[in-house]
């Protein structure tokens, strides 16, 4: 039983089909966005899901956070099987999983003050007084590296990195156990990206959070992940620990992906310049 105890998230053969409505003379078309993906994730660990656009990684994220309903398959979170049919989801279950979106400019309501952004989940789900909510929001602002002086401001007064901090704070307001991060740093500048990744690592240590980290950037994945899953056209073509996947990729696509990633180390620059010299000399 010890192994099951430590499993935070288990996904069994999960599938999602989209139906494209047919026209007058066109038959309906079914698109298999996710074609049966299974994995297990331990408490406090990070699973990175890597893939290029259209590989189904965002659809998977939306199913894990109950935004979309899976066509088939099972979802077991914290030892409980989830009934994902609309209306059957308990508020308690929903609070266990939260998401951080890719685009920090679209994920915050432009007409809502930061304090209200953070207070809203509490207002809806708890009976806290407004003073308590304010305290909790201020506490969380400090935790993500902002401060109480930001409570009354609107999202447009913040930079992209700051907004992503706010989005992370909002996701943490209900004390979730599982955080799905859908490309949380790919819209950010390099220096800000480093700060947000550090923040995520700090928060994981502090709250014992489990992360599902969706990304297309292999260098970020290599840094943050414990386990890696590579998706290609709705299928998981590679799944294993970070060391396994990066040192010995099994699937042809994974190798292509690694080869295509630009390298910023001195040796490869030297090699490139040498190649260029040889080409011009010839």
């Amino acid at each position: 039983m010890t192994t099951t105890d430590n499993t935070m998230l288990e996904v069994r053969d999960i599938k999602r089909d989209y139906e494209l409505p047919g026209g007058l003379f066109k038959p309906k078309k079914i698109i298999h966005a996710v074609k049966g993906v299974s994995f297990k994730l331990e408490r406090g660990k990070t699973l990175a899901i890597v893939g290029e656009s259209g590989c189904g990684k965002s659809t998977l994220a939306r199913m894990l956070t109950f935004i979309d309903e899976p066509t088939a398959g099972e979802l077991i979170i914290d030892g409980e099987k989830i009934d994902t049919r609309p209306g059957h989801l308990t508020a308690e279950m929903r609070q266990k999983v939260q998401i951080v979106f890719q685009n920090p400019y679209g994920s915050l309501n432009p007409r809502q003050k930061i304090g209200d952004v953070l207070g809203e989940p509490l207002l809806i789900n708890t009976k806290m007084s407004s003073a308590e909510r304010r305290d909790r929001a201020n506490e969380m602002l400090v935790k993500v590296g902002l401060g109480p002086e930001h409570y009354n401001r609107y999202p447009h007064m913040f930079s992209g990195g700051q907004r992503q901090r706010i989005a992370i704070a909002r996701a943490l307001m209900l004390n979730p156990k599982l955080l799905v991060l859908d490309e949380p740093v790919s819209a950010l500048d390099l220096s800000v990206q480093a700060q947000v990744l550090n923040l995520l690592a700090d928060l994981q240590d502090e709250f014992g959070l489990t992360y599902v980290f969706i990304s297309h950037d292999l260098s970020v994945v290599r840094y943050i992940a414990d386990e890696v899953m590579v998706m290609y056209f709705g299928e998981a073509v590679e799944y294993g620990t970070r060391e396994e996947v990066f040192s010995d990729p099994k699937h042809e696509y994974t190798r292509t992906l690694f080869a295509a990633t630009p390298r910023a180390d001195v040796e490869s620059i030297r090699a490139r310049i040498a190649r260029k010299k040889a080409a011009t000399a010839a």
Partner: protein
Amino acid sequence: MALLQIDNLTVEFETASGWFRAVDGVSLSVEKGEVLAIVGESGSGKSVAMLAVMGLLPWTAKITADRMLFEGRDIRNISPAERRKLIGKDIAMIFQEPIASLNPCFTVGFQIEEVLRIHLGLDRQARRARAIELFRQVGLPNPEERLNHFPHQMSGGQCQRVMIAIAIACNPKLLIADEPTTALDVTIQKQILDLLMSLQAKNGMGLIMITHDMGVVAETADRVVVQYKGKKMEEADVLSLFENPKSNYTKALLAALPENATGDRLTTVSAFFEGAPEAAETRA
């Protein structure tokens, strides 16, 4: 003589809260057959500087420069008609969003032939032959058939290939690529970068690569200009920039790369700015 030489370029915009300086006294030059990368984060003014060279900024922008020479010719105050002759022919540009950069109402064949007609004055048959040749050069399969396609029928990578074909249609002496692969997947990015590099080497044109991605810089550039908040922080050839960065900002950028992580936390930019004069105003 440098292909493009800019001295002390400043670009300002008027906003609700006064004048905003997007580019602040930047000087740079590109030689023939050289790949110059301008690297910087958002708000560093890297795109604005090049748009100013192309004369593509809105009228609210105030552009000043001590010198702005293209092949020794002053392009600060040339007439719009002359500028039109220059742009698209001798200087070409490709942008970040390939699908948005093509006119959705016309076939890609029409759009490339339009450039050939305006700048080279070729007749119909010569245009078509040249368009097919160009499509073949940028590695589009079935070029004859492709000419009749609309942008929405192609993927992002294919659209970027079309954009490159249009850009090199008149054998430009200088190609400015503004984040040409940012919107594309890594495997496609690799193909597009390889294509750009091989075309650059073959045609011997100058190439300015605007990017935020240190990986792209490492894979393409001969020389690098690092910009931050409209100011030039450093200029160096690519190897010495990565091996031995001079400015604190470049050091910080390189340290923030996840692949250069030491220990279980990344080094952030501010750690480098500790005590540096810029530290006081590092609000993004």
